[in-house]
C-alpha cells in the first residue's frame, strides 16, 4: 500500500487477465507441444513415417513462433503487470520464492536454447542428435512447470508454510501433486488441440491416421485433466470447497464456473472421440476451432476457479490481494493508511480527496471507478431506491432489488424492504432524506468491512482462515483509522451524487 498507484480504467485485474490468459495457454502448449512433437518424431523415425515427421516439423514452427516469442514475452509480461498493479504482493512472492524462480530460469534457458536448436536443425543433423535435442527441450519445459506449479499452488493452499514459513513446506503444499497431474493433462490437451491445425494439412491418404493419433493423445489429456481436477478439489480445505461446491455454494458464480469448465472438458472429449478418432474424415477447420475453444474454456474455467477461490487473498491467509498482510491489520488500523504511505498522504485535507486516496490505496487493486468492477455501479443511487419502491405489475422493483441490493440485504425480502422505505412521492419530496439514507448504507457497508478486519486479525495464525464465515468472503477487509473510514465513505457518497468525480492518474493531486 505504500507504492504509487497506477489507476487503469479497465482495472489491474483485467489487464492481468489479458496478459495471463494467452500466456498460460501458450506456455502449456509449449510444454505439451514439446512432448507430442518429440514423441511424434521418435515414432516417425522408428516407423519411417514421413507424414508423422511432417506433423512434428510443421508443429515445431508453431512452437518456435508462438512459444519462444509470445510465450517468453508474455511470461515477462506477467511480472511486469504484477509489479505495476500489485507491487507489494509480487514482491512478497519473489522474496519468498526467489530461489524457486531462479531454478525455473535455469530450465527456461535450457528450454529456449533447445527449442531454437531443434527448429533450426531439421535436415541438418543426424536423427539421433535431433531427437536428443527434442527430448531435452521437453525436459526443460516440463521441469519449469514442476517448479512453477509449486509457487502457484502455494498461493492458494500454503499449508504448513503458514506455520513454519519454510520454503519446501509451502512448495509441496496440499494441492501440489493434484495440480501437477491436472496441468500435465492440460499441457497434453493444449498441444493436441493446437496440433490438429497443422495435422489438417496432412496428405489425404495419411490424414485420418494422423488425426486419429492426435485423438488418442486428446483422450489421454482429458482423462489426466479430469482425474487431476477431481483430486485437486478433494485436496482443497473444506472451507475453500464450501465457496463453490456442494448444494449451497457461497459464491454462485464460481459454482457456475466449475460446471462450465467440466462441461467444456466433456465437450472436448466428445469432439475428440467422434471427430478425431471415430470419423476423422469429418474433421475441418471449424471442428478444430470448436475443439480448441472447448479445451481453452476448460482451462480458462479452472484458472478462474483457482483465482476465485483464493479471493480475497494473494497468498491464502497471509497476504490480501491489495497487498495488505493479515499480520499488519492492527498496525494499519492504529497508524492509518496515510501515515504508512507517502503517496496516499500527498494531497489536500479535504475529506473527499482523502477518501479518494484511501480508495486508491486499498480498493483499486480490484475496483475501478467506472470500468471493470465499477465501484460507482455497485453503490446505491436515488434512482435505485425509487425503482425498488415503484409499484409495477411486471415485478421490475423486485428485480432491481435483487440485483442492486440483494448482495447485502440477504435476509430481507422485497416486500419487507418496501414496507421500510418511503414511497416514491416521499422520496421526490425530500431527496435529502434519501441522500442521508444512502450515506448511511454506504457507511454501514464500510463499517462491516472494517469489522471483518477484526475477524481476520483474531483468526488463529498458522492455519487457513475460514473466509466463508466472513460477511464478504471475497473482499479484503477495510483497514485504516476511523477518520480514513469516514473519508472513504465521503468519497463514495460523492461518487453517487457527482458523476464527474474521477480518479487522479498518479501521485497525490487529482
Amino acid at each position, binding site marked *: 500500500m505504500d507504492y504509487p498507484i497506477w489507476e487503469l480504467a479497465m482495472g489491474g485485474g483485467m489487464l492481468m487477465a489479458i496478459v495471463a490468459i494467452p500466456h498460460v495457454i501458450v506456455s502449456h502448449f509449449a510444454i505439451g507441444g514439446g512432448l507430442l512433437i518429440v514423441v511424434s518424431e521418435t515414432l516417425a523415425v522408428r516407423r519411417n513415417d514421413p507424414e508423422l515427421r511432417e506433423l512434428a516439423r510443421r508443429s515445431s514452427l508453431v512452437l518456435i513462433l508462438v512459444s519462444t516469442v509470445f510465450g517468453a514475452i508474455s511470461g515477462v509480461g506477467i511480472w511486469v503487470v504484477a509489479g505495476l498493479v500489485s*507491487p507489494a504482493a509480487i514482491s512478497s512472492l519473489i522474496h519468498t520464492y526467489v530461489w524457486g524462480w531462479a531454478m525455473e530460469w535455469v530450465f527456461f534457458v535450457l528450454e529456449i536454447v533447445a527449442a531454437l536448436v531443434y527448429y533450426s536443425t531439421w*535436415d541438418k543433423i543426424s536423427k539421433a542428435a535431433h531427437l536428443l535435442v527434442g527430448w531435452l527441450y521437453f525436459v526443460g519445459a516440463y521441469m519449469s512447470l514442476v517448479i512453477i506449479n509449486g509457487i502457484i499452488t502455494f498461493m492458494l493452499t500454503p499449508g504448513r508454510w503458514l506455520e513454519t514459513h519454510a520454503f519446501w513446506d509451502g512448495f509441496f503444499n496440499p494441492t501440489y501433486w493434484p495440480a501437477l497431474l491436472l496441468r500435465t493433462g492440460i499441457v497434453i490437451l493444449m498441444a493436441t488441440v493446437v496440433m490438429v491445425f497443422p495435422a489438417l494439412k496432412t496428405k489425404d491418404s495419411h490424414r485420418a491416421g494422423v488425426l486419429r493419433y492426435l485423438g488418442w493423445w486428446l483422450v489421454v489429456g482429458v482423462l489426466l485433466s479430469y482425474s487431476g481436477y477431481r483430486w485437486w478439489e478433494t485436496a482443497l480445505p473444506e472451507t475453500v470447497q464450501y465457496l463453490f461446491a456442494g448444494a449451497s455454494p457461497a459464491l454462485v458464480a464460481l459454482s457456475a464456473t466449475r460446471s462450465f469448465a467440466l462441461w467444456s472438458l466433456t465437450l472436448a472429449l466428445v469432439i475428440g472421440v467422434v471427430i478425431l478418432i471415430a470419423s476423422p474424415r469429418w474433421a475441418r477447420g471449424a471442428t478444430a476451432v470448436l475443439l480448441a475453444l472447448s479445451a481453452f474454456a476448460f482451462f480458462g474455467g479452472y484458472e478462474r476457479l483457482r483465482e476465485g477461490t483464493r479471493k480475497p487473498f494473494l497468498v491464502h491467509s497471509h497476504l490480501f490481494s491489495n497487498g495488505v498482510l493479515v499480520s499488519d491489520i492492527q498496525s494499519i488500523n492504529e497508524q492509518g493508511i496515510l501515515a504508512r504511505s507517502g503517496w496516499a498522504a*500527498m494531497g489536500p485535507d479535504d475529506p473527499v480527496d482523502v477518501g479518494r486516496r484511501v480508495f486508491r490505496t486499498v480498493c483499486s487493486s480490484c475496483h475501478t471507478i467506472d470500468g471493470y468492477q465499477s465501484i460507482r455501479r455497485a453503490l446505491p443511487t436515488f434512482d435505485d431506491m425509487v425503482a425498488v419502491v415503484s409499484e409495477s405489475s411486471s415485478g421490475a422493483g423486485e428485480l432491481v432489488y435483487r440485483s442492486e441490493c440483494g448482495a447485502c440485504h440477504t435476509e430481507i425480502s422485497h416486500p419487507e424492504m418496501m414496507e421500510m422505505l418511503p414511497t416514491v412521492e416521499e422520496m421526490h419530496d425530500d431527496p435529502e432524506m434519501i441522500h442521508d439514507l444512502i450515506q448511511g448504507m454506504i457507511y454501514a457497508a464500510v463499517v462491516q468491512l472494517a469489522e471483518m478486519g477484526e475477524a481476520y486479525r483474531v483468526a488463529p495464525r498458522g492455519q487457513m482462515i475460514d473466509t466463508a464465515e466472513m460477511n464478504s468472503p471475497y473482499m479484503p477487509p477495510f483497514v485504516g483509522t476511523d477518520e480514513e473510514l469516514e473519508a472513504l465513505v465521503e468519497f463514495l457518497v460523492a461518487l453517487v451524487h457527482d458523476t464527474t468525480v474521477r480518479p487522479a492518474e498518479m501521485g497525490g493531486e487529482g
Partner: protein
Amino acid sequence: MNPNLIPAVDPAGVPGPLWLFHVLLVLTFFLHLLFMNLSLGGAILAAVGHYRSGGRRDDFRAVLASRLVGVNSYGISLTITTGVAPLLFIQVLYQQYFYAATILIAPVWFGMLVLLIVGYYAAYFHKFRSAPDRRNSGGVWLIVSAVMFFLIAMIHVAVNLIHAQPEKWASLADGSWFVLADPTYWPRLLHFGFAGIGFSALVATWWSVRRASDGDDVETNTAIARWTWRWVLWTTALQVVDGFVLLMVLPRPVLLGMMRGGAATLVPLTLAIVLGIGLLMMLARVTNPVENPGLVTGTLAAMTLTIAIMTITRHQVRAIYLEPSTAQFQIGVVSQWGNFVLFAVLLVAGLATVGFMVRRVLTSPASGVDAA
C-alpha cells in the same frame, strides 16, 4: 526528499546474503547485455546495411544484413531469456525503487511489451517474408525492428534513472516525461546505443574474418569485415567521448562517491577507461581485419571484458545514487543456503547440458536420409 514516498522493505527479508544477490544481479545482467547488444546493434546495423546495399542481393551489405537478422531471430529470444534473471534479482534487492519507478511510467513500461513483440515479429517477418529478389523488399521490417528496440532501450534508461533518484519521484509523479531532461539521460542512452552497434559490428567482423580465413567467399567476407570494422572504430571513438561526457554530467555527489570509493570503484572505472582507449588503438591499427585474425579475436575479448567491467561500474553508480535512501532501511536476511546450493547445482548442470547439446549438434552433421 520525502522519505515516506519510498516504500518499506519487504518484511519477508532477503533469502540469502545481500552480496550474493549483488553478484548474481551483475553477472546475469552482463550476460543479458551481451545478447541485448547483439539485438539492438544488430537490428540497427542490419537496417543500415540493407539500405546501403541499394537492394542488390549480392551486395556484401545485404549479405551482412541477412546474417544479422538470422542471428537476431535467435538472439532476441536469448536476450529475453537472459533478461529474466536480472529482472528477478533486481526485484529482490531494489524492489522499493524499481516497482515505484515502473509505476511512475506505467503505461510506457507496459508498452515495452508491445514494442518487444512488434520488434521481434518484425525480425521474423523480414526473415520469412522478405523476398530478396525485390528491391529493398522487407527493409521496412528491419527499420521497425530497430526502432522498437531503440525505444525499449529508452524505456530501460528512463526506469533506471527514475529508480535511482527517489528524491525526484514527487515531481516525476506530475509528469514523468521530465526524466528525458535529466542531464545523464541522453549520454546514458547513447552509451548503450554505441555499445550495441559496436559489439554487434565486432561480432560480425570476427565471424566474417573466420569465414574468410576458411576460404569461404573471401571477397564478400573481406568486404563485410572491413565495413563492420569501421563501424566498430567509429562507435568506439564516440563511446569514449560519450563515456567522459556521462562521467562529467553525473550528479556531483555521485561523482564524488565514485572518487571516494577507493579501489573498489576506481579500479573498475580506470580499467574500463583504459580498455576503451586501448580498444580504440587496436582498432585504429588495422584497416583490413582479415589480415589480422588474432587481433580481431583479441579485440572481441577486450570489448567483452570492457562490457563486464562497465557492468560493475554501472551497478556501483546505482548504489551511490541510492546510498542516501538505502541507508535509511535495514534489510532483513533469512538465508536459504540449501536452496541456493540447489540452484547453483542446477545452473551448472543446465549449462553443461546446453554445452553438451550444442557440441552434439555440431558434431552430428548429416544430410539426405541420415538427416532428421
